[in-house]
């Protein structure tokens, strides 16, 4: 028997079952799937073991038959970006994985800036055993006055718990799949472009010659066949790990603990915290520097968190118009 349920509590953000932000233990059930739906799956991208090979980018494009483009997303054009080895530039309609390359150097604060023969400098070397043993992953020690480190990180759609793109999609083209992922339905999207502005990570984008928007589907079709997404399948060093989200979270916590133990103070998880502005990510990361260094927002918040307040304001503003109009009409002298 069908019953008409009211959407209004959700509208206020106060419906315990349809919250617009905050942790959601079962985002899939939230989207109307039965109890026996598959576990929510996700990506854990451990950038401390990324070797920047871009296999993820190519495997993704091969599976999803995406067009080639340059670092600005211009389709069927290529050119050197000058951003280290990153010629993909960004996530977009044509690139659903993007490997960022960040070159960093810092001067070693100790004396002896140049290489020379031993004994030339009585104060000895900049390097000592302790300094050498506590390097970060992705830190090469280069044996002179400068330390170089080259960070690499494969970015992807975050498949947010509270996905702005999904929330604002007016056609239902973007939907939550039974795996808890966020997917665009190509037969529905009419290219309104709202999702593009709603994504706090700048992930989804419109392919201009096609008119529709595109982004990572976490290989929805492969998931239905019991396969891993193409990128995680290809990743040579398991920097991209795919699996049940809770399992990945446990693995990530353990990895972080290990790195911290090894003295890698710069390691941190990104998108792991369910109390963050998007209720945690389905695709989260272990980073070795601040998120913005990788082109990620440091504290993203799903825009719909504030939607109840906005609707309230819009309602008040509409009443204001009616009030002003009424005052204007009724306060004016009647024409003769």
């Amino acid at each position: 028997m069908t019953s008409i349920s009211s959407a209004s509590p959700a509208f206020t953000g106060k419906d315990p079952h349809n919250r617009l932000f905050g942790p959601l233990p079962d985002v899939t059930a939230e989207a109307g799937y039965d109890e026996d739906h598959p576990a929510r799956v996700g990506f854990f991208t451990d950038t401390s073991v990324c070797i920047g090979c871009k296999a993820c980018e190519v495997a993704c494009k091969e599976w999803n038959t995406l067009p080639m483009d340059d670092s600005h997303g211009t389709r069927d054009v290529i050119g050197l970006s000058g951003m280290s080895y990153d010629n993909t530039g960004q996530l977009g309609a044509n690139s659903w994985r993007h490997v960022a390359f960040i070159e960093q150097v810092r001067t070693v604060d100790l004396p002896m800036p140049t290489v020379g023969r031993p004994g030339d400098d009585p104060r000895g070397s900049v390097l000592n055993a302790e300094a050498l043993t506590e390097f970060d992953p992705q830190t090469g020690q280069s044996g002179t006055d400068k330390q170089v480190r080259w960070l690499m990180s494969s970015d992807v759609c975050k498949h947010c718990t509270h996905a702005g793109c999904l929330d604002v999609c007016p056609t239902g083209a973007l939907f939550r799949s039974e795996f808890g992922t966020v997917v665009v339905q190509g037969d529905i999207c009419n290219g309104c472009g709202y999702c593009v502005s709603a994504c706090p990570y700048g992930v989804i984008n419109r392919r201009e010659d096609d008119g529709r928007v595109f982004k990572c589907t976490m290989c929805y079709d492969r998931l239905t066949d019991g396969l891993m997404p193409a990128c995680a399948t290809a990743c040579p060093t398991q920097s991209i790990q795919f699996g049940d989200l809770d399992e990945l979270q446990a693995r990530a916590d353990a990895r972080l603990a290990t790195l911290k133990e090894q003295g890698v103070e710069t390691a941190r998880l990104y998108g792991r915290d369910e109390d963050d502005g998007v209720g945690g990510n389905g695709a989260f990361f272990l980073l070795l520097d601040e998120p913005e260094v990788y082109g990620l927002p440091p504290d993203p918040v799903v825009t719909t968190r504030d939607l109840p307040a906005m609707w309230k304001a819009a309602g008040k503003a509409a009443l204001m118009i009616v009030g002003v109009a009424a005052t204007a009409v009724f306060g004016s002298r009647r024409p003769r």
Partner: protein
Amino acid sequence: MICRSEGRAFGQPDPAGGGSIDGVKTWLDAWPVFRQLTGPDPLGRGRAARSRGTEAVVSRTATADRVAASVCPYCAVGCAQKVYVENERITQIEGDPDSPISRGRLCPKGSASKQLVTSPTRVTKVRYRRPYGTEWEDLDLDTAMEMIADRVLEARRKGWQEVDGPPENRHRVNRTMGVASLGGATLDNEENYLMKKLYSALGAIQIENQARI
């Protein structure tokens, strides 16, 4: 009218042909707003929003006619590949997780293997450039093989040596210096074997391979 066209765009096909109560029901079910109002997905974020295309999604790994066991042709790690074939066309190439060496993983080049073998810029017809010619010409494969055979015999003859070396150090060599060959290191062992065998039988010795480089 709106709903009808929408129903065609994304709804389920209407088996009852419309008009009957069942037909209306099916047609209503196909309208996500109805599913929103009546189902567990009032906000239309998940189950209610699923399209006909989504319900029909199937992985092309699942529809393949067969899967061939192969090996990546790029570097020498020797990553195992699974080659999916459907209607005699390659639909996907990916790593074979059973491989003890690669564990199913591929680098960007290996991941681009499908593009390598299905590339539209692959040359699939014999091309021929005549001496002093300024254009490529077409040539039949059989004709090309016959022409090459002619030229091999002629070059072999022109470059034949019974003996070689300065007078004080002259030895039988039984070979031709007229034909040389350079192979890539993506040749199969079987191919290399036939090449070396045939060239040696012809007396050709300047047989080289990328392995030198």
